[in-house]
């Protein structure tokens, strides 16, 4: 553009010179020619200066661009902007790198949104929509899905510009790859998850004998019933009603066996980390069903007192079952010295008056806990069990804390120990759980 502009100028100078020459004014001619020359020189000089200035500016611009790229890569910053009118997106090389977008691909608004982890998308969109006019600076932590299924944690800071009517005009911002920090947090989370799972598997290992026994009951009944049906069907006076009854019994026994396996499998699986809607009563009866064999084997009686009309709860079903099972088995263990007729556990589920929570208490009549050990029982690797790993209560504690609750132990006034934990009555606050999951055991 600059070149053509200068060409235009010289063209015009030449034209004017020709006009004046053809007019043929002698005497003035030399002077005129000199003047023209001067003007031409001035233009040429101006053109040169301009050209130099532009070259300099371009150089400067390139240098500053380089510098920006350097800084942004050192700081792991990725710049981007989105224009509402054209829906076009500009993103720096680093930004594209973080978002796992191709370098040359032309981008639109939805390509940016698509890079965000599906679970974080609604939150981001909500935030952009709700940003107040005329400018609003937003900051959020979110996850993006990079190539493959890698999840990256990023911090995004953005400015939304709006027109007078409040409609979005432009959003400009930068993103930072939280990289190592978040990756190690995620790694830690994964490890914790694995550890919880391992503890669960170990606990179920403890239960396996009793569970196998439990499973043998319906299997025995099924075999007996089927054999009986075979015998009856060989008789001359076939009693169809009785056969029907037997088949019905087989069906229900089979379902019972299936349920035992189902419960077991739910706990054996890695399971999801998300919270779901919970009924504490159901949770408790599931756990008691799982532990039934063991309780029977140990001659332990369990009484439950569950308040009616408990509020809705949110939590991780499998992990809370793990906590309850852990407390029940510990209670069982602590009464192993009691005579067989004196082994009772009481489980009380009630609203905690003083806090906005539901409290679950597991009371035994065992040997109790030494005063100086009341707090230490939640320490990792603290155990009074022979062959115990000492992780059960530490993990239970971290699970309860991740739910926003507390887990503590007391001695009962007469005898035995009591373990209580609370679960806050949630209103389904988002993000709460994930945030808390990062907490390391604080036993």
């Amino acid at each position, binding site marked *: 553009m600059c070149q053509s502009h200068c060409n235009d100028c010289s063209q015009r100078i030449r034209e004017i010179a020709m006009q004046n020459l053809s007019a043929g004014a002698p005497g003035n001619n030399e002077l005129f020619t000199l003047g023209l020359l001067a003007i031409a020189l001035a233009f040429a000089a101006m053109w040169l200066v301009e050209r130099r200035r532009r070259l300099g500016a371009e150089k400067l611009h390139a240098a500053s661009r380089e510098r920006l790229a350097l800084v942004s890569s050192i700081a792991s910053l990725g710049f981007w902007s989105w224009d509402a009118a054209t829906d076009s997106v500009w993103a720096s090389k680093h930004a594209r790198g973080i978002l796992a977008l191709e370098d040359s691909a032309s981008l639109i608004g939805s390509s940016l949104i698509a890079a965000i982890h599906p679970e974080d998308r609604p939150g981001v969109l909500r935030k952009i929509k709700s940003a107040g006019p005329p400018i609003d600076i937003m900051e959020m932590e979110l996850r993006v899905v990079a190539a493959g299924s890698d999840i990256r944690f990023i911090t995004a800071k953005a400015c939304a510009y709006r027109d007078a009517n409040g409609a979005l005009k432009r959003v400009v911002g930068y993103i930072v790859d939280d990289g190592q920090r978040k990756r190690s947090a995620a790694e830690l989370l994964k490890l914790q998850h694995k550890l919880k799972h391992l503890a669960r598997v170990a606990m179920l290992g403890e239960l396996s004998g009793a569970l196998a*026994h439990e499973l043998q*009951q319906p299997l*025995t009944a099924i075999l*007996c*019933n089927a054999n*009986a049906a075979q015998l009856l069907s060989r008789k001359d006076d076939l009693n169809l009603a009785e056969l029907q009854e037997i088949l019905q019994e087989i069906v229900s*026994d089979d379902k019972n066996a299936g349920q035992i396996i189902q419960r077991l499998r739910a706990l054996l699986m890695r399971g999801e980390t998300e919270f779901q809607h919970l009924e504490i009563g159901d949770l408790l009866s599931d756990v008691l069903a799982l532990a039934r064999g063991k309780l*029977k084997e140990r001659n332990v009686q369990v009484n439950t007192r569950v308040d009616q009309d408990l509020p809705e709860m949110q939590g991780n079903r499998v992990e809370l079952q793990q906590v309850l099972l852990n407390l029940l088995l510990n209670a069982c263990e602590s009464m192993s010295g009691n005579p067989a007729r004196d082994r009772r556990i009481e489980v009380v589920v009630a609203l905690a008056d003083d806090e906005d929570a539901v409290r679950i208490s597991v009371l035994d009549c065992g040997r109790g806990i030494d005063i100086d050990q009341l707090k230490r029982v939640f320490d990792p690797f603290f155990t009074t069990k022979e062959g115990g790993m000492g992780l059960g209560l530490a993990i239970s504690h971290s699970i309860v804390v991740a739910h926003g609750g507390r887990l503590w132990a007391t001695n009962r006034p007469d005898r035995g120990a009591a373990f209580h934990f609370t679960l806050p009555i949630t209103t389904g606050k988002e993000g709460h759980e994930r945030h808390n999951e990062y907490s390391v055991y604080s036993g």
Partner: protein
Amino acid sequence: MNGTTSTVFIVDDAREVRMGLSRLLAAAGYRVRAFESAACFLEEHDVEAPGCLLLDVCMPGLSGLELQRTLVGSPGARPIVFLTGRGDIQTSVHAMKEGAVDFLTKPVDESQLFAAVEQALKRDAEQRLERAIRDTIHKRLAMLTPRERQVMAHVIRGRLNKQIAADLGTGEKTVKVHRARVMSKMVARSVAELVQLAARVGVGIEPAVGSNAAPVNWKHAYPNVQLPDG
């Protein structure tokens, strides 16, 4: 299958197992009674009724092994077939030592179950017969006077009337009378029979029962007891 008068008493806390076992044994023609706990069984079952016990090892409250221990030596004792969810060796050895007929693992095979129950019922019948015989002998012994007992003790040692009279410081005739009363009260036709009767209940058994002793005619000796044929 045994006589229809025998009952298989089932004790198992799992309802479905009780139902299943009852159905199967009933279908096979056995008379069955089921109890949900050892305590219920002890409270309700008829000690006199012939039959065997089909007993779950692991139950809340009184366990199968504890029930076995309670029953051993009591009038309610009867042959036991154990059923267990897990065949742990220690428990089974213990149960067998205490006289269990068999120790079966759940889920139990039909033919094994029938064989074990059959054997248990047979053993029960034998034990009942043995008990009945001993009861009769004891009843007869109870009818003897102290003097007659003394005489009997000498007779079964193979001593002659003369020797007995000398030992007891009495006349030979008197001993003869006592001896005749003993033989009559004990319903024994020969000294050999008397020795066998005494040996059966462990009275004065020092001298071994002679190998040439005549077999006891049980039908004659115990008219009130139902005896197996032959």
